[in-house]
């Protein structure tokens, strides 16, 4: 008869106890290994943000003592914060990563956060660019750092999320996903987006960064930065491409970023949090979600669901 542990008969339960972070870590490592075993050409979509940093750390753990057996892809809109790019290049060098950077060159100068609305800009410089890069390198599986707690339609997405030949997501026709048995069988023109952080929350991510001492972009920590107020949020003047409106003068404010993206579209928050515990304290005390600072989510109610059906991450 199988020994079944119960509260009563398990004197060593403390010994066989994984904390929630250890459990999440073990799950994510399992997912990384499955993908590498079952796909021909996986890639890690590296956005340089905190979730990507955690993803990278878990990938290292999954394949230790070997190296990460797949490349990283950064879809560069050319409008990322300068500190993000410096961080990206430093991390790639330090860990000897195979980093591929892709930009939608055709529209690089024509479509910017200043010439077009955020929807058009995101479609062309992020979603389109991502599709082009996936096709160029013929990747069949792409790891992403999305979490189910981020936003309502994400909560329904599978860990292995199949995209058709046009990279589109069909939320009504997802494969059932049972136990830890992931169905990785696809047609040659399809791809799968893989979300090893599905079950992590924002707090788990920060807690893990703290516990594991994971390197993140300094923009997450508060310090005086030149900003202007737009759409009720602080926008950082990161370089001289920022078009100032009449009467706008950048002022130095103690700010930090809760999520990172293209600098003209990333809202900063006023904050004094300059360490990871202080950030966690701030998140727990503020009543607003991290997506609040992202200008691209706003618009129609189902904006994110729609973007993802069309191939956005």
């Amino acid at each position, binding site marked *: 008869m*199988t*020994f*079944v*542990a*119960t*509260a009563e008969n*398990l004197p060593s339960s403390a010994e*066989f*106890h*994984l*904390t*929630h*972070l*250890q*459990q999440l*870590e*073990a*799950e994510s*490592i*399992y997912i990384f*290994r*499955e993908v590498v*075993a079952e796909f021909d050409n996986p890639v890690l979509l590296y956005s340089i943000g905190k979730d990507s940093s955690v993803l990278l750390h878990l990938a*290292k*753990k*999954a394949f*230790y*003592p*070997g190296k990460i057996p797949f490349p990283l892809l950064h879809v560069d809109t050319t409008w990322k914060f300068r500190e993000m790019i410096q961080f990206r290049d430093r991390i790639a060098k330090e860990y000897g990563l195979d980093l591929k950077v892709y930009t939608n060159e055709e529209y690089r100068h024509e479509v910017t956060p200043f010439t077009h609305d955020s929807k058009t800009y995101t479609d062309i410089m992020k979603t389109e660019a991502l599709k082009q890069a996936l096709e160029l390198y013929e990747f069949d599986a792409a790891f992403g750092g999305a979490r*189910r*707690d981020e936003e*309502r*339609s994400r*909560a329904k997405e599978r860990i292995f999320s199949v995209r058709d030949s046009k990279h589109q997501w069909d*939320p*009504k026709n*997802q494969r*059932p*996903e*049972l*136990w*830890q*048995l992931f*169905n990785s*069988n696809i047609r040659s023109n399809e791809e799968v987006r893989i979300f090893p952080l*599905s*079950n992590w*929350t924002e707090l788990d991510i920060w*807690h893990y960064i703290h516990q594991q001492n994971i390197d993140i972009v300094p923009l997450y920590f508060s310090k005086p930065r030149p900003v202007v107020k737009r759409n009720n949020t602080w926008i950082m003047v990161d370089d001289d491409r920022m078009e100032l409106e009449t009467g706008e003068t950048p002022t130095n404010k103690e700010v930090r970023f809760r999520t990172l993206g293209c600098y003209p579209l990333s809202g900063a928050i006023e904050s004094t949090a300059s360490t990871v*515990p202080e950030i966690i304290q701030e998140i*727990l*005390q503020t*009543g*607003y*979600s991290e997506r*609040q600072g992202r200008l691209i989510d706003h618009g129609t*109610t*189902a904006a994110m*669901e*729609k973007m993802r059906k069309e191939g956005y991450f």
Partner: protein
Amino acid sequence: MPTSITEENQINRPTKDYMISDRELISTDIEKYLSRHEEKQILKFLTCGSVDDGKSTLIGRLLHDTNTVYTDHLEAIARDTKRIGKDDDELDLSLLVDGLQAEREQGITIDVAYRYFSTSERKFIIADCPGHQQYTRNMATGASNCDLAVILIDAQQGVQTQTKHHTYVTHLLGIRHLVIAINKMDLVDYEQEQFEAIKSEFQSYLDSLGNPDVQFIPLSAKKGDNVVARSMNMDWYTGPTILSYLHSFPVTQIRDFESFRMVIQRVNHPHDNFRGYSGTLASGTIQKGQSIRVMPSGIETKIERIVTMDGDLEQAFAPMSVTITLEDELDASRGDVLIDLEHPLQPKSELNANLVWMDDDALNMDRKYIVKHGASQVLAKVDKLYHQVHIEDLSRKKMHSLQKNDIGVCKLILDRPICCDTYSRNRMLGGFILIDRLSNRTVAAGMINSSEEGEMLGELTNTSSKISSSKTFPVDRHASRPPITRPLPKQIATG
């Protein structure tokens, strides 16, 4: 974060604020909070109910009353409540969880959604499962990784066929702990008689399922009674609230720490001096130096090292993800299973299993499907359909085909043997999926039994004759009964 929206919510304010000790620590000693938070364990549970049982409202209530909801999300659902044309005097908490556009507009849950919240005691993952019978497949999906199920019953409607369906599917997927949440008590004037009537009606069905561990709780998700806060309206109920039950439920109950099983996911061979076998322990523990067996070859060897990036371990236990090196050089590869010497595992090429059919196309017995089990894919045919269980009274009936959402006991013949356990013994080595070779769709979920009788259902078949369908389940009872209170307002009808 806001704790209440309407006056009504004020009445049922949490009597014990599960966040309060956390909140104090957060402002005074964040490091201490973090080290305490780290000790929390995860409890995964699913929620299921019939259409309009108020499931999404219950989850919305759990999230809302544990202060998990962000202000901007609350603002968004306040806008949605108006946009969809519902009454704006009360926030529709179900909108917090109905994620897809179609769901919000049709007021139904289509797909399983995952929700996260934590209290000062635990971290919770909810698999929020659709209620319609045609979404059985999604319910099975949600149940596959859960330890506990919360099944909703509408106090006005009583036990429905779907209630039995949900209970049966969670049972089949190996869940042995149930909360039967009798919701909408506010619409039956919080009457104890109604609660007791439903409870005794359902008890006999549960008895015939081998009497799983069950807690009945009367509640109103809409008003907040007995979800987080103890109800002021039901003095007659002295049991736990939903949240206090979820706190007291022992998380470690379902793990087997005796028989060691680890499926090799991948051979980690970065250079000539290192060959490790990576995997996640499905059950049991291992020590450095312990003798183990590699299946299916049966070769015995010893564990040389347990490798992780944080350093070698002396021992490991389920569900850790590790890389193991072995003392002997041998030809082990992905799909092989490492086991201890005391608990053998026989390779099998004939499987008796419960199949939950999930695809639009019915089972084709002339066709081979891919069985994905552990880290192996093997071609297989369904050779025999033994029987189907009639969910209403748990009697057996003859089965000629398997259609979408049907559940049947079958025999499969595999092209090559796999190393499996029975599902009741080990979910990771006892569960499999069937994949269609042409469409690549996941067409079925399988749970391996030890015999064609279906061991998990053995208990059912022995006792099923006890159930008299006419006495225990009066089919038209609710149809003939006048509504107890006002009809269900549309805005809270959202399941």
